[in-house]
């Protein structure tokens, strides 16, 4: 609906014709076999059914023996496998994907149930989540709709984040520099994962997780970088080196993207460079005392006005070049 309104405006402005508008709408409709609302409701339905089954088992926990609970769980798992295969064979691709998603959630519930029945404890809290991701990994090789990937990947990345931070903390005893560079190591880890996702997308097209890994790892990387730069602006002691590292990462990453013709991400990096300049201004302002005295405030304010005047111009010049490539 929003797309149609936007196209109406383009028609009114004389940029596209009415025929072109209809062609664009027909193309978009054909591209998305399942509308977003339908997909969201389907996912919600699967999630509610799964939650209902788990609640039913949990509410009658005391009544059932361990063997009965396991038998019910494996019957549900086998039923999901059967339905996923049957609907796939019948050519109902999206229904098959929903069953695979149901199977994914049931596997998580089954792992929790097995842990409780066999009284498994000790070890790390995040280990079962890693096991869940490992067990359900094969689903990503048959899932073409990416629905399972959108749930699997946050699970995997969340586990990896916990695992990496935990092990970085353990390495502190052997490598003291790890503490100083823990944030940088984590940022580079997620950037590396995005690279792996990109490579998987190109080399193994049947693996639906490749593009999702790339997108979600990049999201975590940029969210982390945003916070990292923010911390660099606020922290008076180690802020400047942080901002320097961030600038270095952005510069090297942009060069790599430029060489690989990843221009949209270069544009995003330029926006982050703008954020970095603002934080650099705040850091320097605090260090030089610009926000504490009258003269300092005048110099600081003038500097900010100059930044507002010239930074967008510089951004437009660089972005304009990138857009035109």
């Amino acid at each position: 609906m929003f797309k149609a309104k936007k196209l109406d405006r383009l028609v009114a402005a004389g940029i596209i014709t009415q025929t072109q508008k209809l062609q664009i709408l027909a193309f978009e409709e054909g591209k998305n076999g399942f509308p977003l609302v339908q997909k969201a409701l389907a996912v919600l339905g699967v999630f509610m059914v799964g939650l209902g089954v788990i609640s039913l088992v949990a509410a009658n926990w005391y009544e059932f023996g361990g063997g009965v609970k396991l038998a019910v769980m494996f019957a549900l798992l086998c039923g999901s496998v059967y339905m996923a295969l049957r609907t796939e064979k019948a050519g109902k691709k999206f229904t098959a994907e929903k069953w695979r998603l149901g199977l994914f959630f049931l596997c998580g519930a089954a792992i929790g149930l097995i842990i409780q029945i066999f009284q498994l404890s000790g070890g790390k809290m995040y280990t079962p989540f890693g096991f869940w991701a490992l067990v359900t990994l094969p689903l990503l090789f048959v899932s073409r709709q990416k629905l399972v990937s959108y749930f699997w990947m946050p699970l995997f990345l969340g586990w990896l984040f916990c695992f990496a931070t935990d092990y970085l903390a353990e390495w502190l005893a052997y490598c003291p520099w790890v503490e100083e560079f823990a944030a940088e190591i984590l940022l580079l880890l997620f950037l590396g994962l995005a690279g792996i996702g990109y490579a998987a997308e190109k080399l193994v097209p049947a693996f639906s997780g490749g593009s999702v890994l790339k997108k979600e790892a990049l999201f975590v990387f940029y969210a982390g970088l945003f916070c990292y730069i923010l911390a660099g602006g606020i922290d008076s002691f180690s802020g400047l080196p942080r901002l320097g590292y961030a600038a270095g990462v952005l510069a090297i990453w942009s060069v790599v993207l430029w060489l690989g013709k990843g221009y949209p991400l270069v544009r995003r990096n330029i926006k982050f460079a703008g954020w970095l300049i603002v934080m650099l201004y705040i850091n320097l302002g605090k260090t030089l005392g610009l926000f504490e005295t009258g003269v300092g405030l005048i110099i600081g304010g003038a500097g900010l006005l100059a930044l507002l005047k010239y930074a967008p111009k510089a951004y437009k010049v660089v972005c304009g070049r990138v857009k035109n490539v």
Partner: protein
Amino acid sequence: MFEKWKNPVMVSLPVVLLLAWVAFLWWQIAAGALVKIKIKGYDPRDLLAGHYILYELDWEATDCSQFVGGKCPKEEFERFDAVRGRFYVPQQLALALEQDIQNSANTAEMVFSYRAGYRPYARSLLINGRNWNGAAVRF
């Protein structure tokens, strides 16, 4: 050929892996001998506590004669991170059981399936020699 079997194999694999895990756990537990180790409750300020009780093994009060050579395998339990653990019970019973364990007038023991060199598995909780849920204790 592979394409024909790829979908059934990949979709079934998670269930097969879970079944294999259950079979492995069953075999591990069946292969071990049941031993009783005294426990004491502790309060680790666990926000998730509720449907399980938390325990810590009390080697000082444990009868070590049940182990080979009459020596309690403390190091082995430590190696498998089994000195402290969670024991899953229905939520409505957790608080009462926790109080029973902490009451010094009671004897609380954890029954483990133990085999030297392998991970010990908690099997049951005994309060004054009786199973926590009233079921018969099999040794």
